[in-house]
């Protein structure tokens, strides 16, 4: 039939036109697409940094955390720009490579930066403690089945175990680490003078951080050190950790991260022991207060020995953003009472507890989508410090210390959590019990405002 033949011709013609049109359109689109992609690839080739080989990833990341810290020590007040030690400025390179479906290997090198040190500056030296140092340098081998083995300079089971915090406040002001913000300042006696005969200059004066086990590290908390560390694979949110290193200390701990009902929970607890001798230049995993470098001579058979435990938990109600953190830790020093007759009845234990509560919600999301979460928080900290065989106070042996602190603040996230603005205030009150009594000390107040930018 004619119509059938006509229809076939028309269909064929249309098919040809359509095919041509599609081909042309495709070619046109493809050409445009290729030109655009070519330009963008050329731009990347010209402007990007390259890595050393094709096998391992290389990620460069880090953060800058700087702010203005105002302080009032009861006699003098001042303000300076400092690096916030709560989560200080740093630069990190890290990566990994897959060996098989179960195994991979990776590394991290992380360099810490302190333009001015918020936990070391003094009334006379605003730049005290500035510089760069090595935070991490390690490699690891990781199996999904058997866990991860890490070797190098890094933190063990006790590192951060008393500082667990699901809220943004962890980067601005740790609720359990008081040393970080202003405790390099020298303490003032009630008459306004410094201790240890220093009078009106801070050189040699007893500083606030010395209240906390002399080193400033809270009881129960670990440190980064040269260690070998094993971590089990995660099981229902739980991970077991054990590490050993230096000469010698070891730790073991358990961590948890998960959700229960409508709550996010993170928690950890760790125990450690140390017989490590601290020298003038060494970094130790667990810092024992009494040891041969502080009056107990080498070869006396009385190497340093101490034990500690610490833990913390953070719970956040996802729907409301209400959260609470709690931390505690204790360190026992076996040798403190053998450091001399003065210490025969001294307190061998240092312990602390700390709590933080607050609200973390996207309160400003209606103002602009650029705003992330807002965190409002309050903190309380209490230290019952033991005797110190290292430092003296006005020439008298230190038999015990105390430190309490309360404070609060606000953290505002911008661009999710990559930029955070913060402002906070703290009030510190410290005490020292010596063989001569307990002198009255002036309290310390600080206020800090700053920002952390992550890259």
């Amino acid at each position: 039939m004619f119509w059938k033949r006509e229809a076939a011709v028309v269909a064929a013609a249309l098919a040809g036109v359509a095919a041509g049109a599609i081909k042309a359109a495709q070619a046109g689109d493809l050409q445009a697409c290729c030109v655009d992609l070519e330009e963008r690839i050329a731009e990347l080739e010209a402007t990007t940094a390259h890595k050393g080989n094709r096998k391992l990833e290389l990620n460069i990341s880090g953060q800058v955390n700087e702010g203005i810290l105002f302080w009032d020590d009861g006699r003098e007040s001042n303000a300076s720009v400092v690096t916030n030690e709560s989560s200080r400025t740093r630069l990190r390179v890290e990566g990994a490579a897959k060996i098989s479906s179960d195994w991979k290997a990776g590394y991290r090198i992380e360099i810490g930066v302190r333009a001015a040190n918020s936990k070391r500056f003094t009334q006379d030296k605003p730049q005290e403690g500035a510089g760069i140092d090595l935070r991490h340098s390690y490699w690891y081998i990781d199996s999904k089945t058997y866990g991860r083995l890490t070797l190098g300079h890094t933190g063990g089971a006790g590192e951060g175990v008393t500082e667990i915090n699901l809220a943004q406040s962890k980067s601005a002001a740790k609720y359990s680490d008081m040393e970080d913000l202003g405790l390099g300042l020298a303490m003032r006696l009630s008459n306004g003078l410094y201790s240890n005969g220093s009078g009106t200059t801070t050189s040699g004066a007893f500083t606030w951080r010395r209240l906390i086990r002399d080193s400033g590290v809270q009881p129960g908390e670990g440190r980064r050190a040269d260690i070998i560390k094993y971590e089990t694979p995660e099981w229902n949110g739980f991970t077991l950790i054990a590490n050993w290193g230096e000469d010698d200390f070891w730790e073991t701990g358990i961590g948890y991260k998960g959700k229960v009902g409508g709550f996010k929970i993170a928690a950890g607890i760790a125990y450690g022991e140390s017989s490590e001798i601290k020298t003038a230049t060494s970094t130790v995993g667990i810092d024992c207060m009494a040891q041969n470098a502080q009056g107990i001579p080498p070869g006396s058979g009385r190497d340093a020995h101490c034990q500690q435990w610490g833990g913390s938990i953070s719970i956040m109600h996802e729907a409301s953003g209400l959260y609470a953190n709690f931390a505690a830790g204790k360190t026992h020093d076996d040798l403190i009472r053998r450091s001399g007759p003065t210490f025969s009845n001294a307190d061998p234990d240092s312990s602390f507890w700390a709590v933080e509560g607050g609200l973390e919600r996207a309160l400003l999301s209606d103002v602009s989508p650029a705003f992330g979460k807002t965190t409002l928080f309050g903190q309380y900290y209490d230290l019952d410090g033991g005797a110190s065989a290292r430092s003296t106070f006005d020439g008298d042996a230190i038999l015990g210390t105390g430190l309490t602190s309360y404070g609060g603040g606000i953290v505002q996230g911008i661009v999710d959590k990559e930029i955070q603005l913060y402002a906070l205030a703290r009030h510190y009150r410290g005490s020292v019990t010596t063989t001569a009594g307990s002198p009255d000390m002036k309290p310390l107040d600080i206020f800090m405002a700053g920002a952390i930018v992550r890259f």
Partner: protein
Amino acid sequence: MTSVFKKSVAPLAVMAALGAGAAISGPAAAADLGGDCCADLEERIAELEATAARKGNRKVSLTVSGWVNEMVMFWDDGTESNTYVGTNGLEQSRVKFSGKAKIDKDWSAGYTIELGVKGGDSGAFAQDDTGSANSISVRKSYWYLKSESLGQVSVGQNGTSTYHLLDDVNGFSNLRNYSDAEAAAVALGSFELRDNNGNTVGGLLWKDALRGFNNSTPGQSGRRNVVRYDTPEFAGFSASASWGEDDMWDTSLSYVNKALGDFGVAAQVGYGESSDPGATKCGSNALKCTWWGAAGTIIHNPTGLFVYGGYGSQELEDLPVAVSEATSDFWIIQGGIVQKWMPLGKTTIFGEFRHDDAGSNLGKTESADIDYWAAGVVQNIDAAAMDVYLIYRNASGDVVEDGAATATKLDDFDLIQLGARIQF
């Protein structure tokens, strides 16, 4: 006329057209060139644009590389033993920033900044010290101008021409970074010497008894602030000369041929002088020192059997006082096999012996004779650019203390290193 076919053809034509179009584009073309392909590339490029690190300008390249080299070391000095964790000080962990720009067909310019990082420094391990002085240091910082026909000139902190003069030859066996010529001396250098009764020997360290101003290995220099010239390679040969500090200079000649028949061959010889004892650490009272060294290696490529050997010497000159032995020298021989016995990567098994005839260390020693031997295995994990190593070392000998007439026999020192280096 409005025929019925108009109503019926249109759908047919469209169907035909779609069919033809589909036929033309085809499944393969759709996958390779169609919108999905562009969308995929678009996504991948957008991801790169969002995540790739950028460099300072468009003209000079930037490559970030380096490695992490951490280990566990057990040691036993005959009286005391212990185990430490730390950075392998032989070739410490590091981050390197390097790049170059082409100026024309013949000329290019470039730079290197290399930062060394150490946790516990194994080079500082001692009986009472885990080497825990964490540090970040500038290893290299220099720029260079290079001509393909005339060679390369570099200025800045860099290896001199005799830097790793003996070590760098040991490149075929994958032992260069784990057991080179200076490895034995670096491993125990900061430990105190003990005599056969377990007593320390005048507070001397192994590196006090050994000589060689760079890593206790005569014949080699270190990284210094120098101007360095390297010739282009010619038939496997290249030469180098450097000058700097106040004053030192050295020069070297190298040959490398990876496929000389069934063999790979490499050799290097060099000579240097310094009148700057502070920079070259030849000795606190030395006014001048000279050094030279030579090393070579050969590997049978089909079997992986290799032999490496080297000799180095250092002489103190123009001394204000007479010394027992102004010259210190050492030699090393190493042999083994490197083969890919498993898919994971190549395995190297080796043994080595080193002997030091160390001269005077003013105010500390008159002389020393030290023997080392070592054996070990290095396993490469190719997929992760990683080498795992296990090495045993033993050192023994005797030392004549400053002013002493007789030698003190030293107790053996044993150590085991287990670690890995991962490169990025």
